[in-house]
């Protein structure tokens, strides 16, 4: 009983991971966008090796969360989709990294 209480006390100290970012495919997208200013759809597709549909679906989720900003523009009369992390997205990604590091540090060897 006492052991259970102790375990319950410890539980809240484990950080809750952002599930939007935690999904491996979205984590890769976030990581790639974090290291650049912006990238287009094709570049992300080449880097992450996802299918267009899959990538599109994950980007939509990140956009819904307010983490990614999509800008559609025409460059030399060709459609161009630029993707960039929002400030909220950058902050969330930094927080996610801190959380995952904290969890990893607490895990037994």
């Amino acid at each position, binding site marked *: 009983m006492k052991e259970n209480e102790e375990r319950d006390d410890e539980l809240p100290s484990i950080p809750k991971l952002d599930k939007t970012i935690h999904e491996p495919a979205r984590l890769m997208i976030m990581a790639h966008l974090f290291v650049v200013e912006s990238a287009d759809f094709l*570049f*992300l597709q080449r880097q992450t090796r996802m299918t267009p549909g899959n990538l599109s679906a994950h980007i939509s989720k990140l956009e819904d969360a307010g983490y990614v900003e999509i800008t559609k523009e025409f460059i030399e009369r060709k459609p161009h989709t*630029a993707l960039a992390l929002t400030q909220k997205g950058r902050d969330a990604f930094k927080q996610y990294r801190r959380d995952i590091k904290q969890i990893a540090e607490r895990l037994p060897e």
Partner: protein
Amino acid sequence: MAERVNLKEIERKVYTSYHQDGLIDVSIAFIVLAFGLMMVLDMGWMGWVFAVVSISLYAAAKKTLTVPRIGFVRFATYRVKAMQTLAIGVLSLLMLLGVVAFMQTEEGGTPPWLLFAIENYMLVIGVSVAASFCAVGYTFRIRRVYAYALLTLTMFVTGHFLYYPLHYYLILLGTLILLFGLVMLIRFIRRYPLSTTESTGDSDNEGK
């Protein structure tokens, strides 16, 4: 998970993949070759004209060859800004040295440090070109450009003792880099065929 989010590695990979087209190598080779060939014609100054042309061609080729194949990315500019500051600093220093050299020559003969530089011009040029390559390698995070810097240093230090004319080394260096760049370019074009409209993410079913 921690290994998967190695940001430095991702950043390096992103830069490497964007510059795997060999265009930067071809452009560098074009500039070095232009200087070498123009020196044969005794018009070394024309090398600067070709350098400007080469930079313009690089930008155009990147837009036509690379972007349609692997997409477009805008990198953070802090390294570019650092290099711009460094370039301005180096140019200012060179201008100051020029003024000091002029003043000392006017006062009475060529200063000893200038004589030393003229006598060891192969070393001075070799170090300058190698330093420029290192700056390019650092700015764009392209490791192979450091290898070009090492190759340049080796060739020019050897050249210092062999006494062949300078343009021989420039033409040889330019040819080697050009060959390497062309091989990379051909491999890149074969590896990344032109993308379809669907994969650009601009089709109607893409995004939201």
